Structure formats: structure tokens, C-alpha cells
């Protein structure tokens, strides 16, 4: 099946991102296609490359980045939610006159239409949040 996933909370604070990642891995292991993970609300904070988790802890951002590369998962960060929370790619930083960006590899910033589209295209959409 074609599965879409929505992640509404940031890394570490809530289990949402971890649960979504474990679910995505299990789905891929079972032969399903996870074609998109949409990061909304504080979920956009999963997409910063600036996290430095303790060495004995999981690295949530790297987990997602690697999953995207290995299994061709589209990691989309909502642009409106990202602007409120300070997640920018190089283009956005330039456009907004900011002197730095922080998007992690494998993530892309796009509009809310990508969430609706995920709902339309996916056979099933599963949301993880607070």
C-alpha cells in the first residue's frame, strides 16, 4: 500500500517523531511504500541539522535523513509552520533576509498543499502527535 505519515511534534520532547519513524520502518519492511512524511506544527523542528543529541541517545534527525535516502521517502516540512518556528533552507533564508539556514539533508520545505495531496494520493494516512 501507499502510506502517508504526518508528524506534528518536534524531536525528543514528544514520542511522536520516534513512533512515526518506527512505524515507517516497519511499513517499509513489510513491503509498503511510505511515499511522504509531512512535518507540521512543531514537527517542522525534526528538520533542523543543528541538533546535537547526547552520544548515547538516538539521533532523530539522522534517522529520518537516512530513511529518506535508503527508501526514497519524501520528507516535507510545512513552510508556514517552519517560518513561525525558525526552520529555513538556503532559499528561504535569502528570501527572508536571514543570515543562516538550518534545514537537514533529505528534508525539503514546501506548502500545505503537500499534506492535502498526501491525503489524496495515499491509501492510508497516519498522524503522530502530542
Amino acid at each position: 500500500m501507499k502510506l502517508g505519515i504526518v508528524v506534528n511534534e518536534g524531536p525528543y520532547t514528544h514520542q511522536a517523531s520516534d513512533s512515526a519513524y518506527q512505524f515507517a520502518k516497519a511499513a517499509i519492511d513489510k513491503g509498503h511504500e511510505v511515499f511522504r512524511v509531512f512535518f507540521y506544527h512543531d514537527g517542522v523542528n525534526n528538520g533542523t541539522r543543528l541538533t546535537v543529541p547526547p552520544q548515547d541517545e538516538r539521533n532523530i534527525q539522522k534517522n529520518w535523513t537516512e530513511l529518506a535516502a535508503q527508501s526514497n521517502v519524501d520528507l516535507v516540512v510545512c513552510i508556514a509552520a517552519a517560518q513561525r518556528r525558525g526552520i529555513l533552507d538556503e532559499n528561504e533564508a535569502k528570501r527572508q533576509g536571514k543570515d543562516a539556514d538550518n534545514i537537514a539533508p533529505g528534508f525539503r520545505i514546501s506548502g500545505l498543499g503537500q499534506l492535502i495531496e498526501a491525503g489524496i494520493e495515499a491509501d492510508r494516512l497516519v498522524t503522530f502527535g502530542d
Partner: protein
Amino acid sequence: MAMDEAGGAPGAAKKFLYVNRKAPYGTIYALESLEVVLIGAAFEQDVQLAFLDDGVYQIVKNQSTDAIGAKNFSPTYKALGDYEVTKLYVEAEALEERGLTADDLMEITFEDEDDDWAEKPSINIVSRADMAKIMSEQDVILSF
């Protein structure tokens, strides 16, 4: 529009339900839910909004946010009709438990193009059992 790339055949609209269970302002979920609804309206799906639990507070009258320093986004609900979002289901039990009645809610209406553009209420008060039934008939449920 993205519809052309969609899995379903063009014209085969999916039933989307936006479930709103949280009060406005204490958290951003109500506002960011509304932002999805507005963007989603362009996709010509069959859209419904559910208000239950504290979500009913999103559409109460007389919200005034000057003193908390946040933007009052409640007028946007009144504009939903212009986006052809016309089906808002409000759970009767949720109102009653909170000491609220239908009169405490904003007037949210739409102009019915199939009925000579007559102005009609968008809000439908439904029982909890009916809300459960509505939920069971969706293709996609987005929870906020």
C-alpha cells in the same frame, strides 16, 4: 493543480474530515488546522469540519485577543463559505458539558448555489452518536 497527479481518478473526490478538539489560543492547533482547511479548499475534495470536546470553543462568539497579544483568527471561520467549506459539524454533548448553547456560537453561513444563492447556516449541531457515524464515513481524517 495537484489533482492531476493524484492517485484517484479526476473528479473522484475524497471525503476529508478535519477534527478539531482543542480550544483556541492555548495552543496553535486550531489556527494551523484552519490554515490547512483554507489551502485544502483549492483541492476540490469533499470537506467537512468536526468540532468536539474543547474544539467547540474555536467557534464561540466574542473572542477578543487584544490583551493576550495574539491575533484573533475567529473571523476566518465566517469566511469559510467563500471557500466552499460549508459543512461544520458541532457535537451537541460537547456544547452542553461546557455550559454552552448554539446561541454562543458565531453565525457561520454560506450561499447555496443550488438554491438561488440563499444564505444558509454552515453549522450543524449533531449528537455524539451521529458524530461517530460521520467519522466512520470518511476517507481521510486529519486531527488537530
